[in-house]
């Protein structure tokens, strides 16, 4: 197969009527996926199944692991060797992957994990929708660290945000989480996939010196806070550990090094939030009621806002495309304009993202929650918009 033919097979350029899970898989392929390690779990399985067929044909490696513990670590190992790697799971598997999110954050090895959320906790409703892993995405592994998490609202976004997830993971050397939900995963809609050469791929910062010339310090950073990454097999003889480490990568078991390291892991995301975060606005200009919604719920929210507007209610939608970083600056900006009188946060959980809004405002934050199994309808949301 010629390189060009391989490229064409890798990126399914064109317009498709495609399942959300499949669009996610295609987004990963278009992003240059080299390695998938995963364990089948509803409702993410279609991602693995599609990649089992597609990935080997374009030169990538598909490994069905023994569990989600192994899946998450295998993709870190492959990424340490230079692979663009990811896995896809759902709540129970996501819980098992938490330890490795911490490892990837601490070692600064880029990975992408897809969590197709289902109604939880525990086994919950395996085939039915949930959005209740939103806080787990941010805080699920022990300790402080930085991640990015995106929540697609359509199959098109499953493609687009998977692509973005790889870029952000590589650019900042962080775990990036794609927080899909069962509704979006199992919905088929038009998906437009661009030409292979139109896809911009973010790059990992890489050492600017040849191996052996001068000593490579795997965790020496400049202004960007992101150290250049050398891969296994390149001759840099790196050492990486989940222990607190110095710029050589060596264990440095003292509080000063720890404090500096952990702050940097968090600051990589915090100080670059403007670059990493994504949101979409609808009818916010004079909105008195701001609906804050994400994923499948934002679809009903948009419809509710349209109908509310038609009925003369001053409402608008702030759609969280990134859950983390939370678009804090934008929300503060809305508050400074002084028109907003209340927020409404509908979500398929018992109020996880509402906490973020409450954290930023003294205004009333209305709720519309469902523990999972069903997404709110536009009527449900409209009924709460004054």
């Amino acid at each position, binding site marked *: 197969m010629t390189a060009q033919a391989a490229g064409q097979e890798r990126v399914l350029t064109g317009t498709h*009527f495609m399942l959300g899970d499949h669009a996610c898989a295609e987004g990963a392929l278009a992003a240059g996926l080299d390695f998938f390690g995963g364990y089948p779990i509803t409702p993410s399985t279609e991602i693995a199944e599609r990649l089992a067929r597609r990935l080997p044909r374009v030169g990538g490696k598909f490994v069905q692991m023994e569990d989600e513990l192994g899946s998450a670590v295998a993709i870190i190992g492959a990424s340490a060797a230079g692979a663009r790697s990811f896995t896809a799971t759902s709540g129970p598997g996501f819980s098992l992957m938490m330890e490795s999110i911490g490892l990837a954050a601490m070692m600064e090895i880029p990975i992408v994990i897809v969590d197709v959320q289902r109604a939880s906790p525990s086994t919950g409703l395996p085939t039915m929708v949930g959005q209740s892993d939103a806080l787990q995405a941010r805080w699920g592994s022990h300790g402080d660290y930085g991640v990015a998490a995106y929540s697609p609202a359509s199959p098109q976004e499953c493609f687009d945000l998977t692509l973005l997830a790889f870029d952000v993971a590589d650019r900042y050397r962080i775990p990036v989480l794609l927080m899909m939900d069962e509704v979006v995963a*199992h919905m*088929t809609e038009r998906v437009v996939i661009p030409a292979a050469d139109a896809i911009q791929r973010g790059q990992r910062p890489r050492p600017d010196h040849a191996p052996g010339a001068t000593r490579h310090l795997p965790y020496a950073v400049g202004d960007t806070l992101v150290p250049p990454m050398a891969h296994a097999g390149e001759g840099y003889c790196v050492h990486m550990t989940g222990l607190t480490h110095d710029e050589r990568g060596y264990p440095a078991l003292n509080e000063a090094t720890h404090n500096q390291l952990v702050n940097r892991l968090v600051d990589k995301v915090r100080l670059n939030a403007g670059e990493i975060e994504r949101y979409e606005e609808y009818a916010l200009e004079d909105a008195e009621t701001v609906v804050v919604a994400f994923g499948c719920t934002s679809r009903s929210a948009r*419809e509710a806002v349209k109908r509310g507007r038609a009925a003369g209610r001053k409402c608008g939608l702030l759609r969280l495309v990134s859950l983390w970083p939370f678009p804090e600056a934008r929300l503060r900006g809305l508050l400074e304009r002084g028109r907003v009188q209340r927020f409404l946060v509908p979500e398929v959980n018992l109020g996880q993202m509402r906490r973020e809004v409450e954290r930023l405002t003294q205004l009333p934050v209305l709720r519309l929650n469902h523990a999972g199994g069903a997404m709110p309808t536009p009527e449900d949301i409209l009924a709460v918009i004054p």
Partner: protein
Amino acid sequence: MSEGRREVRIGGFGGQGIVLAGTLLGKAASLYDGKEAVFTQSYGPEARGGASRADVIIDDEPVDYPYVTRPDVVAVLFQEAYLKFAGDLRPGGLLIIEPDLVTPESGVHALALPATRIADELGRRVVANVVLLGCLVRHAGLVSRDAAEQAIRETVKPATVDLNLEAFAAGFAHDAGAVSEAAG
């Protein structure tokens, strides 16, 4: 909902190919007719045994809420699906039944399309779903015939394109006089 929003539900049992029928309808609208469409289907235990559904929403504007709640069109291919789904039909909506497998209550207006028999006459029972699609495209008027045929050509295995186009044409052409009066 948008005024242009139309909801279609196809009900059947496993093996009747309702997922393909729904996908073809959505694809025709979304890719070849310049409309917006969302397709969803029964999933998990809901899809095993008993009546499963294939739902399509077609609109001129992007579809927000992705689920069918009050279908404008219900097409059912066996009795349990009829019992489960026909009651959701919007008043004045279009009901299509497979008369060899569905016996509606008296007084219910429906188009009767013997999709299985027509498919058998073509030599392949498996294309009953596409026969149904032909009928649905003609009577529901949600997508153009050209778009539906394009969707078939782009979706089914190349070796079965002709058979499926034939099945679609047979369903589309099925003599309106042979079906009972439609509702509304």
